[in-house]
């Protein structure tokens, strides 16, 4: 029988302790975890990027459901433990769930401190602690509106930047005269304030919150403003309390464990009850409580060692460092900054570069370091600080960092190579250089992901990613496989997915805004990124974004296909491949009138007129428009054709009206822009004469309904479709096709055909969002219809009527003058 281990709390400390325990003593314990939050263990440090929209919840998961299952752990999500019966060794959750234990691990974390002013319990006052808080903030930001953040420390500034990124007007209230006064002197605090203000956040210092004022809405009182003690009132739709945290030791105290500020533990993480251990932010160890991740992980390691029967492991306390996780502001701080008689400071200020460095030295030892604007030497200073090495010899050039310490400046890779093996690279996970190098050697690692998987270095907050990359380069040289994400083009390091997400997250509205905000390296983009950005913006803001014709390939600008001789081909739409005498006559007339040299049938059941001169295009379109024909978009990254067979109307094998369904689909979907071209087909029976099973989206009719196929191709690659699902009615078939198309419009990378998108995201994801989740399917269809209300305009008619003025004629003709000479 394995021993029974019950864990109270499912945060990062608990997760790490269990992970370590399973690695050390697999199968020794039957583990049950109680978590108050209704979800699995995620990376709380990365809530700021989630709030800013730079990451999603899925990106910050540490353990997914499968991990708990694989390791035989019973996870009670959303069950808060309210009592522990120490004599009978059992815990009781709020919902009555009972679990018996041999050993108990308490990891209840901390609670945000709420300034106890009148109104602090109003609806709209939130903290910044868990995913629900982030959800509340994101929801509040939906309507724009105003946010007030109380507290100008790390947490408050990250919250403010995130809310700003979500589009809110944000004011930070800070009690002291400058921001982060514990770490920064006044001038550096000012630098930080400027940088924060430059991000559109208003900072009010010396702001003493007196009360939170209420207004009535829908029969309940909610936040309206914050009043300061000088009488100022700052309007607010949401108030975020970010003044600090305190250990959550309520339960421990209630069950009679020794508690001071936090749950008291010894060096072996044991509480006053030897069968009960505690780790994380809820504990107090040697008089200190910690709120950063590195100490929690160190404690988790010791607790796991003790639980697995290792008597040697002990925790002796941590020196901590921290970084501000606001994109574009680099701030590193470590150690102690309190003034003391025997303490000296070295300060470097470079106003031109907005760089500030401050070192605190005590008896030739570095005890504190703050770096602002240039944090490259953070790891080096932190190492000096932790090892307590004498800096007497380095003193003159110490502030210039490691590059100077050896006499000659080092390149960044050499600087990393020069670090000692004990140098800590990843502060969050306590991974030192030697461990990473060992893992690279033993496992033959050449990628960042590989190093992350095996050592966890840079797998938490990610701010040491650059260091880890340099370390891989220093170790394996050219074998290093740099990027796992291919950048959009040479103008950026970002991949398509990141660009799409950041456009939404940062609310970017134009191509220049994207290039500016996302740090494009070229001045005007290139032929690869410009059309992609134009599409992404168009898809993100239908009806609002103004299409940039100059960022479109000539075919989409001129609504015709350029040919090798500079003439164009014109393909009118023939709904579902069906035409009429009237249309054919009009086409024949155009062919005669403009001396069209070639008329050809296409593979998509259309008629192609080839060899038309640019200046004739508007006249050709006018004549085709007059016969009721519109652009066939044969030239675009758009809905192209819906090919059909004659179906039940004519065919003796036809099971459904495939022609009618094809026409209906084409009339509904035409005009929409997509990441790459989209071809559809509807076949009336499984003989599949419309070749639906090699189209981007295909429908194969059967007696009992409609099979919806996706992901076919018959070009560079030949791909048969996969069946998404089968439906009974034609209305549902149209809705499903629309939902898939819209999902692709929202997720696809520019020039990525549906079959490639399918391979990338997986059929299960597409099925879950379009087939299983009906509400989501409806929402997708609604978003598509909104987009169509702006997109379904015949570009030919638009050009003929003079809109979207693209000049079709030369600006001057000098050949005539020459002839007259």
């Amino acid at each position, binding site marked *: 029988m394995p021993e029974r281990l019950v864990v109270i709390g499912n945060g990062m400390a608990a997760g790490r302790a269990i992970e370590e325990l399973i690695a050390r003593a697999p199968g020794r314990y039957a583990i049950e975890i109680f978590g108050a939050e209704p979800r699995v263990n995620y990376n709380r440090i990365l809530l700021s990027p989630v709030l800013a929209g730079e990451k999603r919840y899925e990106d910050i998961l540490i353990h997914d459901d499968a991990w708990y299952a694989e390791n035989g752990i019973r996870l009670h999500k959303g069950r808060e433990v309210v009592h522990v019966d120490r004599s009978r060794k059992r815990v009781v959750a709020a919902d009555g769930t009972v679990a018996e234990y041999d050993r108990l691990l308490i990891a209840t974390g901390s609670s945000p401190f709420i300034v106890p002013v009148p109104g602090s319990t109003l609806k709209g006052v939130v903290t910044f602690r868990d995913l629900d808080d982030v959800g509340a903030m994101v929801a509040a930001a939906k309507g724009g509106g105003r946010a007030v953040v109380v507290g100008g420390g790390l947490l408050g500034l990250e919250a403010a930047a995130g809310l700003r990124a979500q589009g809110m007007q944000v004011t930070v209230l800070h009690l002291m005269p400058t921001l982060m006064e514990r770490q920064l002197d006044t001038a550096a605090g000012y630098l930080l304030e400027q940088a924060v203000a430059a991000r559109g956040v208003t900072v009010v210092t010396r702001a003493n919150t007196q009360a939170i004022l209420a207004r009535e809405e829908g029969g309940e009182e909610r936040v309206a403003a914050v009043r300061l003690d000088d009488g100022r009132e700052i309007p607010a739709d949401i108030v975020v309390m970010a003044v600090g945290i305190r250990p959550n030791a309520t339960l421990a105290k209630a069950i009679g464990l020794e508690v001071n500020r936090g749950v008291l533990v010894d060096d072996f993480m044991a509480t006053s009850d030897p069968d009960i251990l505690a780790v994380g932010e809820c504990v107090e160890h040697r008089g200190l409580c910690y709120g950063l991740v590195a100490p929690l992980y160190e404690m988790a390691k010791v607790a796991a060692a003790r639980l697995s029967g290792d008597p040697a492991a002990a925790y002796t306390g941590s020196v901590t460092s921290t970084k501000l996780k606001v994109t574009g502001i680099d701030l590193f701080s470590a150690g102690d900054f309190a003034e003391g008689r025997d303490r000296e400071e070295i300060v470097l200020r470079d106003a031109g570069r907005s760089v500030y460095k401050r070192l605190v030295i005590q008896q030739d030892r570095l005890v504190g370091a703050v770096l602002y604007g240039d944090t490259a030497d953070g790891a080096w200073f932190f190492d000096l600080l932790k090892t307590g090495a004498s800096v007497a010899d380095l003193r003159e050039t110490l502030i210039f960092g490691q590059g100077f310490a050896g006499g000659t400046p080092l390149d960044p890779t050499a600087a990393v190579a020069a670090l000692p093996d004990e140098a800590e690279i990843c502060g969050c996970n306590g991974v030192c250089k030697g461990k990473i190098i060992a893992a690279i050697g033993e496992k033959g690692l050449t990628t960042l992901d590989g190093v992350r998987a095996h050592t966890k270095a840079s797998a938490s907050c990610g701010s040491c990613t650059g260091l880890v990359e340099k370390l891989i380069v220093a170790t394996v040289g050219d074998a290093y496989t740099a990027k796992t994400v291919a950048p959009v083009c040479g103008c950026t390091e970002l991949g398509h997915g990141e660009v799409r997400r950041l456009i939404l997250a940062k609310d970017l509205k134009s191509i220049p805004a994207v290039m500016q905000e996302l740090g494009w390296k070229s001045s005007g983009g290139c032929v690869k990124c410009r*059309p992609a950005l134009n599409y992404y913006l168009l898809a993100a803001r239908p009806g609002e974004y103004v299409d940039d014709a100059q960022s479109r390939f000539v075919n989409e600008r001129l609504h015709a296909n*350029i040919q090798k001789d500079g003439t164009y081909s014109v393909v009118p739409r023939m709904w579902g491949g069906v035409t009429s005498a009237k249309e054919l006559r009009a086409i024949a007339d155009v062919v005669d009138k403009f001396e069209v040299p070639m008329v050809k049938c296409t593979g998509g059941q259309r008629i192609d007129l080839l060899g038309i001169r640019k200046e004739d295009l508007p006249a050709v379109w006018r004549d085709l428009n007059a016969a009721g024909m519109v652009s066939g978009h044969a030239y675009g990254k758009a809905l192209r054709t819906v090919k059909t067979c004659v179906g039940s109307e004519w065919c003796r094998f036809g099971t459904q009206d495939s022609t009618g369904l094809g026409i209906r689909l084409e009339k509904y979907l035409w005009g929409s822009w997509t990441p790459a071209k989209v071809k559809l087909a509807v076949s009336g029976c499984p003989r599949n004469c419309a070749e639906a099973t090699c189209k981007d989206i295909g429908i194969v009719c059967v007696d009992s309904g409609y099979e919806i196929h996706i992901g076919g191709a018959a070009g560079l690659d030949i791909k048969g479709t996969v069946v998404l699902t089968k439906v009974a009615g034609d209305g549902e078939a149209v809705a499903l096709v629309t939902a898939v198309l819209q999902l692709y419009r929202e997720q696809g990378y520019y020039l990525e055909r549906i079959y490639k998108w399918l391979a990338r995201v997986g059929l299960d994801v597409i099925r879950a969002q379009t087939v299983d989740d009906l509400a989501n399917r409806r929402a997708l269809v609604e978003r598509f219809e909104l987009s169509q209300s702006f997109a379904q305009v015949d570009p030919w008619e638009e050009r003929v009527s003079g809109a979207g003025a693209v000049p079709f004629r030369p*600006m001057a003709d000098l050949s005539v003058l020459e002839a007259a000479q």
Partner: protein
Amino acid sequence: MTHHPAGLSGDWIDIGATDDVPREGARVVRTPCGEVAVFRTAAGDLHALDNRCPHRGGPLAEGIVHGHSVTCPLHNWVFDLRTGKAQGADEGCVRTMPLKIEGGRLYLAVGALRAAVAA
């Protein structure tokens, strides 16, 4: 001589207003020596080049203009509008033409066109 005051006989010939050329775009001028493409960059600079890619004769005026470059619409060769030189791995050069901007009007140099005809 021609009846037109701005015939090929003068030094410079008026081809239109600067505003006729769209930003990050181009317009074409027909001349006895083939088409000339007049480009306007995002920064507002104007350049005149042969409207013919040395690779397969693509109409450069229909290409996407980015920075001070244009990408040929046929096979994506990229040319520097200031020098006419192909960028990157491709080798080749497009002839550039002198262009004068005065009072919001654009003028091509007749001498250059004559030379082109003679060439």
